[in-house]
């Protein structure tokens, strides 16, 4: 009896959480399907996909989407590649100042983002990085690297030393041992780092709106703020909602795709036990 009751209790609690978190999303989805965004009501009176068509017809949003995809992908690839190498060094090598490197990296994450915007803005204008992809990729990398290094270093430490030693005795150079044994074994960690980095870059608004000025580099979240709709006199709420939905989709797809990879413990069975 009590077990059944506990199950009902858990289900209700779970439902409450799901409703609470999903409600804003569903609301935006509904809004994006309305013809008239001003009329109150949860469900649209008249359903339409017109808002999506409007969004995709404006070259403005398409270029923003291109910027977002390009900047996020490049930042993620560079950041994860660098983090993997750095984390391996942190986990395996002994060098002076290792702790200093690790803790400095952590301090960077704690730094309030907004306090870096004015100096970066000035610097980027002088060097010519203002309103370019590189101008966004660099800050994204510096903010995501520390967390990736910490995550990956923990993964590398879990991999028994014998793995590399066995590979080296089998005839692998240190680089081959790293690439063919260590990286595959750390792949759950690498996936985690990749996804976290991508999300950071993809969802960023502050850098995106402050360090760009035009379609050349402005990413989608920042572009949404400049969205005006079909005419100047119209409230573009429905179109903004449609654009938001479009921007959210890649994130959801990524999580669904890689969720298993992130969780999988590949290292089991490496050694006895």
């Amino acid at each position, binding site marked *: 009896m009590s077990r059944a009751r506990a199950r009902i209790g858990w289900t209700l609690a779970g439902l409450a959480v799901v409703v609470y978190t999903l409600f804003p999303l569903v609301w935006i989805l509904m809004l994006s399907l309305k013809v008239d965004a001003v009329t109150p009501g949860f469900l649209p009176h008249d359903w339409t996909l017109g808002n999506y068509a409007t969004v995709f017809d404006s070259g403005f949003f398409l270029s923003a989407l291109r910027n977002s995809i390009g900047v996020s992908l490049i930042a993620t690839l560079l950041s994860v590649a660098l983090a993997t190498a750095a984390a391996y060094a942190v986990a395996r090598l002994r060098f002076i100042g290792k702790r200093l490197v690790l803790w400095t990296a952590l301090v960077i994450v704690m730094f309030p983002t907004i306090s870096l915007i004015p100096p970066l803005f000035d610097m980027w204008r002088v060097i010519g990085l203002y309103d370019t992809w590189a101008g966004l990729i660099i800050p994204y990398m510096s903010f995501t690297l520390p967390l990736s290094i910490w995550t990956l270093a923990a993964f590398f430490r879990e991999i028994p030393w014998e793995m590399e030693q066995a590979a*080296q*005795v*089998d*005839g692998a*150079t240190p680089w081959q041992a790293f690439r063919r044994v260590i990286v595959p074994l750390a792949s759950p960690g690498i996936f985690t780092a990749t996804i976290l980095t991508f999300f950071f870059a993809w969802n960023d608004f502050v850098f995106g709106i402050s360090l760009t000025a035009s379609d050349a580099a402005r990413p989608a979240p920042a572009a949404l703020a400049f969205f005006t709709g079909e005419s100047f006199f119209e409230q573009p709420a429905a179109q903004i909602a449609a654009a938001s939905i479009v921007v959210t989709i890649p994130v959801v797809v990524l999580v669904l795709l890689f969720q298993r990879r992130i969780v999988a413990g590949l290292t089991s069975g490496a*050694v006895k036990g």
Partner: protein
Amino acid sequence: MACIELDRLVKRYADGSVAVDDVTLEIADGELMILVGPSGCGKSTLLRMIVGLEDITSGEVRIDGERVNDKPPHERDLAMVFQNYALYPHLNVYENIAFPLRLRKTPEHEVRTAVQRAAEMLELAEHLPRRPAQLSGGQRQRVAMGRAIVRDAKAFLFDEPLSNLDARLRAQMRAEIARMQRRLGATTVYVTHDQTEAMTLGDRVAVLRAGVLQQYATPRELYEQPANLFVAGFIGAPTMNFAPAHIEDGELRLPFARTPLPPGIDAANMHGRQVVAGIRPTSFEEAQFVDAGKQRCGATFTAEVDLVEWLGSDQYAYIPYALPHTRRAELDALAAWLDRETLQPQLIVSLDPARRVAEGATMRLWVDGSQIHLFDPKTGKPLTNGAAGKSS
């Protein structure tokens, strides 16, 4: 295949501790050499120095006469089986065995034949598609061996490969390793702490203690002519009995009996000397079964049996003997020699397993004086010069 020479090898850590101290050995082509010693004696370190996973402080490792000190492991062309197997968990059995070949960019069809051959030899053919996590301990062990034999390495190195297996499997794998090594004629260095493995597998055995080589000889020589007290106590199961003794009037005075001196001892020179007597459990017999002629070269004594271990094919009796308090110090000194905590004044005696021996019973025992080893208590060196232990 190749011969391996170790020339005055030393491993000293940054904190000054010495793991391997001036070890010189040579392993002939095709020979199976065993490195044996108690845990922490530096045998694994020595093996890792040969394979290149551990830096060499001083001395030289030569493979086929070529100095390899500064070569990284992948250039030394040796194959190693690790204690915990170190299989690659992300690869299946086939790819695990094929891994060394893949690194050498071997053509696919050659890889296939080589892996198949190794798998057949080790009875792994049906497990090839499985992952290491799905295998039993013995199967993982065989995969690790397959990975070692799949290429023509110059030598095989084994680091306590059987210590993670249960007793039955250990005996089976021990025989398999011996058979495989003979078949391949491979130069092999095998590290173990188990003296049974050392005795049964090795062409030659190197006994290590605290990083220092004690003796390097065939198993038979180790057993019959131990180079010192430590080797005598380490080799043989159950272990050799040790008792403080002295020589007087041409006799060996043991705490429990007086025997004639073993052959090779000059009675005149040794008069009054303190010695350590080492007696194998098999050097005892029940007095009633020893004929009168043989009895003369030993001594009989009465003993009370404290404990009996009956194993079916063997039977061991534990027999305490009286030792004056004044001589306990000699026993403690002996324990230090043997790296044991304490040494009890007792004998372990091998008896005919067919006999029913009750605990607490009193027996007449005979000890064969000609089989007794004598050691110098100060240097630990043998006085009998090996003449005693030889089977007559």
